[in-house]
């Protein structure tokens, strides 16, 4: 059965069945990733262009490796030093890239909705690899994959996301994805980092970390960016770490088998103490590995032959 979506622009348009299909396929992809010879011909002759209008190493490399394992030709296109810095519009850039006949454009952009604009103007598949503070669907999918791998199912589980939700596309995609898979979501952080009306996406909002993580099956810590200091959303990273950072002492508040996730890159000593990041609760490196498997599944569903998607 062909995948019902031409693009992957966010979690919002996906049904639970769509999400489970991606995660199921990612399970097979992870098996491929762990082989000695990590190569299958599923996307041979296909071209994937990673268009990164905002810098990223981890996500771009993850998509690139995913494409290459599937035998697609992967090209990295970065906006710095390109036509964009010469004033080319996003629509023009997209149409020029499309003229090179790619099968998939993987788009990261600092403006929310930019991948949607690209998708409305090109004929190939578009994958949103992070747009402003809107969505980062492949991240939420790899997080869900990581949790499902441990738990079998997310149904009835409780996940607490801690940090700068206002500026976080990871948080938005995760709230949507976790809800669709039957989990409950709590958000925690200073009220300055909570966007108004976020509850409408399906979550409870806390400012007290201890209460927020009480009974949680997993805690996802978001990266705190120093740039936000200028916006007065918090006074110092020291105070943030004391109140909302996860220290070894505070892990006593967690359930014994609670999992700790982080989308990376970690600000060690701010949102996570080093001992916690590397400690027994942490599944952070699993997330990175699973990211490749999930992105293989996404590329295969969007660009593979229908029979390859089965």
């Amino acid at each position, binding site marked *: 059965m062909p995948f019902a979506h031409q693009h992957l622009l966010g979690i*919002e348009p996906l049904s639970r069945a769509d999400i489970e299909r991606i995660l199921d396929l990612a399970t097979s992809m992870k098996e491929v990733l762990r082989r000695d010879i990590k190569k299958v011909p599923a996307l041979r002759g296909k071209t994937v262009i990673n268009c990164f209008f905002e810098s990223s190493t981890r996500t771009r490399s993850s998509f690139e490796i995913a494409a290459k394992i599937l035998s697609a030709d992967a090209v990295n296109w970065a906006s710095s030093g390109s036509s964009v810095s010469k004033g080319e519009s*996003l629509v023009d850039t997209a149409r020029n890239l499309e003229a090179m006949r790619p099968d998939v454009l993987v788009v990261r952009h600092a403006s929310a*909705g930019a991948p949607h*604009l690209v998708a409305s103007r090109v004929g190939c598949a578009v994958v949103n690899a992070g747009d402003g*503070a809107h969505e980062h669907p492949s991240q939420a999918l790899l997080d869900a994959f990581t949790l499902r791998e441990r738990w079998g199912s997310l149904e009835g589980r409780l996940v607490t996301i801690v940090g700068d939700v206002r500026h976080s596309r990871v948080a938005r995609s995760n709230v949507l994805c976790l809800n669709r898979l039957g989990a409950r979501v709590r958000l925690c952080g200073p009220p300055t980092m909570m966007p108004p009306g976020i509850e409408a996406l399906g979550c409870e909002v806390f400012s007290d970390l201890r209460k927020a993580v009480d009974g949680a099956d997993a805690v996802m810590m978001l990266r705190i960016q120093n740039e936000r200091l200028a916006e007065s959303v918090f006074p110092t990273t020291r105070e943030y770490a004391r109140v909302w950072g996860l220290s070894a002492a505070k892990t006593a508040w967690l359930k014994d088998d609670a999992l700790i996730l982080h989308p990376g890159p970690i600000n060690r000593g701010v949102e996570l103490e080093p001992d916690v990041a590397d400690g027994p609760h942490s599944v952070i490196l699993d997330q990175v590995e699973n990211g490749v498997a999930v992105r293989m599944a996404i590329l295969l569903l969007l660009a593979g032959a229908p029979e390859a998607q089965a």
Partner: protein
Amino acid sequence: MSSEAPKLILAGGRLVDPASGVDGVRWISIDGGTITAIEEGPPASTDGARVIDCAGKMVLPGLIDLHVHLREPGEEYKETIATGARAAAAGGFTAVVAMPNTRPVVDNAHLVRFVVDKGSEAGGARVYPSGAVSKGQEGKELAEIGDMRAAGIVCITDDGRPVMNPSLMRRALEYASAFDLTVMVHEEDLHLAGGGCMNEGPVATRLGLRGSPNAAEDAMVLRDVELCALTGGRLHIGHLSTAGAVRAVREAKRRGLPVTAEATPHHFTLTDEAVVGYDTRAKMCPPLRSRADVDAVREGLADGTIDAIATDHAPHSPVEKDVEFEKAANGIVGLETALALSLALVRDGVLTLPRMVERLSLGPARCFGLPGGQIERGGVADLTVVDADAEFRVDPGSFVSKGRYTPFEGWTLRGLATHTIVGGRLVFERHGKSEGSGR
């Protein structure tokens, strides 16, 4: 120009004139740019006159739009004074007030005269210039308001930008009163707005877009109402969009302060849900707000808190609009859809027909002390003939304006101007059957 104006007879239309309270079928004779007779039956003689059959149509005082951006000088690729004045006429407007945020800014008498000259050559609606409050609209020093008044401005405004410095705002209100000028304001506390590109709330949060809260507008309206009380200067709140701003203006009027306000068709019709899909046709400043705000604006129009419907007609080209939402320019066109959207308020039971007509004619005329806004014997012949039932699909490709970006594209609306008469001259006439056509 009135010396050459021909004789016209508007025959048997439903005259709706809020000033005199007339709402009935009349025959209106026009000669030499002046209304010479208003009669309940056909005039005795129609010799040498062009008779326009207005049966089944409404005849209204010429519509007045206090708030349009005509982009000339400087951005003629978006609009010119000529195309804007003709678009206004096609929308039924007989007069518009051109905002001064052009390139360069209209902050001196020379540029005011340029706008006046271009406006009188345009052959459309009358174009009244406005002048900047501050030199270059930089919010630092007052512009030469007296000189600009002598050259023809009808108000001062830094529209597009707020006057952030409250002390400058105080001086502007004081100084402008010497020249009997209203200060029109764009109310947005830029610190609170925080670079927001849409209304702050659940929709912005879902879309991951930075929002500007109602408080950014409310706080500035409250500030300026107090400055109005302090100085006694006339204050006009441009494109008011929040429930808080409506409340503040209502309270100011109850105190007897010289405060007036306008609201746009998009703010009384649409909510911030229109942004979903990152639609840059729904991006303007102030942004589209919540349902509660839309309801409050409608209530303000009904109870007279809001004096005028104004379009904030703000044409842009694809260069500014066919881009990422956050990067897109604020502003949409409105001249050619405002009348139909206002008539929808009557059909929705929000306004009576005479009140709606008042908000588009007499109300705005009074805000700035402009001529017109009423139909009287011996008065200037600025009139609009309207087919209130003409249904049309909004097709920006058929607009007279150069601007094409409107959130109402593709909507089916009812109500079109069929004849627009300025100073006794027919500056716009809709040809062919209006049914099913935008023009």
